[in-house]
């Protein structure tokens, strides 16, 4: 398959989710930018609540992602299935952490 073929497939696959990807990136970049302007620095600020919520959001992926694909967790069976699902859960968890931690900073300020 050519590079152009790979790109064609990716474009068709991602097109239905373009609005979600754009929205997610906008929220992520928006919160990070505003928080940085207010003094937030990655890893320098810690919030246990944000960490726990991000962890729960990541773990919840194990439940909702199979449902979102018209399937269920019981059908996640092979090593490939689990690697893909856990990878997705880690990705979602990290994304949530990158949004929630600066958000917590903005809400709570420098009290922590």
């Amino acid at each position, binding site marked *: 398959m050519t590079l152009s073929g790979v790109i*064609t497939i*990716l*474009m*068709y696959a991602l097109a239905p989710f373009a609005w979600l990807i754009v929205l997610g990136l906008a929220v992520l970049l928006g919160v990070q930018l505003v928080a940085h302007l207010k003094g937030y620095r990655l890893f320098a600020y810690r919030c246990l609540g944000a960490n726990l919520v991000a962890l729960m959001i990541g773990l919840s992926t194990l439940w909702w992602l199979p449902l979102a*694909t018209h*399937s*269920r967790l019981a059908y*996640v069976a092979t090593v490939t299935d689990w690697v*893909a699902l856990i990878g997705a859960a880690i990705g979602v968890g990290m994304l949530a952490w990158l949004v929630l931690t600066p958000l917590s900073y903005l809400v709570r300020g420098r009290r922590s």
Partner: protein
Amino acid sequence: MSDPRHPPLGLSRRQLLKWGAGVGAAGLLTTTSAQARPIESRAHIVILGGGAGGMAMANRLANRTRGTTITLVEPREIHHYQPGWTLVASGVWNADKTLRPNADFVPAGIRWERQAATAIDAESRRVTLASGEVLAYDALVVATGLQLNYHLIEGMSPELVGSHGIGSVYASIDAASRTNRAIEAWIAQGGGRGLFTAAPTPVKCAGAPLKMTFTTLSRLEVTGQRDAFQVDYMAPGNALFSQPWVNDFVKQRFDEQGVNRYHQYRLSAIDPGARQATFTRVDREAQFTSHHELREEEFRRPEGLTEVIDYDFIHVVPPMSAPDFVKQSALIAQEGPFAGEWLDVDIHTMQHNRYPEVFGIGDVIGAPINKTAASVKAQAPVVEANLLAHLQEQPLQARHNGYTSCPLITGIGKAMLVEFGYDNNLDFLPSFPFIDPRDESWAAWVMKDRMLQPAYYAVLEGQA
């Protein structure tokens, strides 16, 4: 004057947009080949059919030739993603998801005849269109798809789908939706007998009758009243699937899930009002796989033993063949297992066995397996290379290995990515080392649900 198919820099606007948008993601992926240079030719290439095979060839030949005239004969304005029909009939997808305008895929600079072909004169190299117009060709690509012969089942017509407990995923996208409603009505009834039939001919997507059975089982199990429903699978031969390992798997799974298997049962008539189906018992020696020889006359001959079975729901799989106008042409196989029914091509080079300027692709060809969109993906580069070699009077070197793929849905939410080819008794040909074709998996389901449609459209564009 510049060729409209080859703008400056060699990139179309569509390609430029994709490169711009996708350059970031592309870095994560490797490539295996580069686009070959176009060849010069004055030939008129006619492509019959704008389905998966025809559209892929239109794009490939438009990209790989300069100076040619390419005519695509396709009457439909809308392209149907047929691999999605089982998901529509199973209540997983909306019908709209399978539709796109053909104009999205027809390449610039080719002639698109929005009418059907009605005859092929292979000797004089001419195709007659519905309007009476005649097209002379130097090379012909037959990509007409196949014909659904519901008329060979007495009392049956595609218009009945969705009423009288009749479903048939093959008839059309609308019929797929109506099949879903018929299954819903059967489930709402709270019990009864469901018959799932198979055809005594080669069929497109040979896994579809099995998929419809498996997805319906999923829906019945969800009701919590599975035992109230009797599910019977009526097979005209001993086999349920051409690939031997998968055949054994499906038989075992049917037994485990309480599906009664009836072999040597061919659906020969249906009485919608009475909800009765008549099955003709087939000779025990007959092996209705893709290899068998079949004639319409065989359906017409005086029947032997028949059995009438009541049903509450029936999934009808019609006999299939090449379209009538192809069958009436000299291009149809004259002898062998596909005689009178399918296009006569060399299954490795895809070139016609008697008319070297003719190539076949997709469902219409006489081949032991291969009536899937995945087969088209594998056949298209072979047809492209060999047709161009033919135009240049070079030997045909590209060979199709029979690759085909069936994402065999074994329940709503899980599937097996079954890929195999001609060699070693239809042995597996897995594309991904990390997906075992013998495993039911969520990943294979996600591929079916999310990834294969994008890959299919890339095939149409000649990009995959």
